[in-house]
């Protein structure tokens, strides 16, 4: 697959994944761009390009997260993490704003598990493979994360 086709096919999904890790739209865009530049620089094309790109985005996002402690500040200033699936519903818009904040407060592994399972529709087995942990660990991260989100949202209401 050529680079442009890969970008069109995988770019939005990779962006959403990077956003789930970094909680920052600007950093997510950079992580995705860095992954594609790395792909372009690769001397030999990876055998499984999609898997390679997911790993590159994940590694790049975690490095970027480690370098920057501005995550919550960026979350407050940047674009929201979550938006309503159907625009125009004020209840969903309010929930999106509150849930974005709650999701942004989770530890990164829990945020990653919640985002991939709930919003990207991945199974715990798939999340485990992607994040290189056992399926049970992925499921535990999700359960802890969703419970923390519930606590944060209950406190605010």
């Amino acid at each position: 697959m050529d680079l442009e086709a890969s970008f069109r096919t995988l770019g939005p999904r990779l962006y959403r994944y990077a956003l789930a890790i970094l909680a920052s739209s600007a950093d997510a865009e950079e992580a995705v761009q860095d992954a594609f530049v790395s792909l372009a620089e690769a001397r030999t094309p990876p055998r499984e390009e999609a898997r390679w790109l997911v790993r590159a985005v994940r590694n790049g996002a975690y490095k970027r997260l480690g370098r920057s402690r501005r995550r919550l500040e960026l979350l407050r200033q940047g674009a929201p993490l979550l938006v309503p699936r159907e625009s125009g519903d004020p209840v969903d818009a309010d929930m999106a704003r509150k849930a974005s904040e709650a999701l942004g407060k989770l530890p990164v592994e829990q945020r990653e598990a919640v985002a991939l399972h709930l919003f990207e529709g991945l199974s715990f087995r798939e999340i485990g493979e992607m994040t290189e942990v056992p399926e049970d660990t992925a499921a535990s991260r999700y359960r802890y994360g969703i419970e923390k989100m519930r606590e944060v949202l209950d406190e605010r209401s």
Partner: protein
Amino acid sequence: MSVPELEARLRRLRLAEPEPDLGGRVLETALSMRRLGRQLRLAWGAAAAAALLAAGTCWMEPVRSQPPIRMPEDLASLAEIDPALARRAQVLAMALPREDAWDTLHTRTAAMKTLEGEIP
């Protein structure tokens, strides 16, 4: 609110898609080109840097005349000279926004000036 209730409400939401951050993306592209230019000067010298600048000019030019941007035809000739450089130029071109707003042209012009100042 119970966890199942929360999950049901969250399923009405989705992760945000990338927004067209025009200025930021162009600036990032310019910065990438600048970093690339520095690497090129180290690796291949001024001739390769000039080829890069030529590549930048050719994929900027269609934007000025008729948006949306398209991949430069000259990229093929650049690929004959330096395939790796051509692939990187292609990636950078993809990072550019495709919206045909007039104000982006000014931003791109500024980005080009940045490039011209950075790469001898």
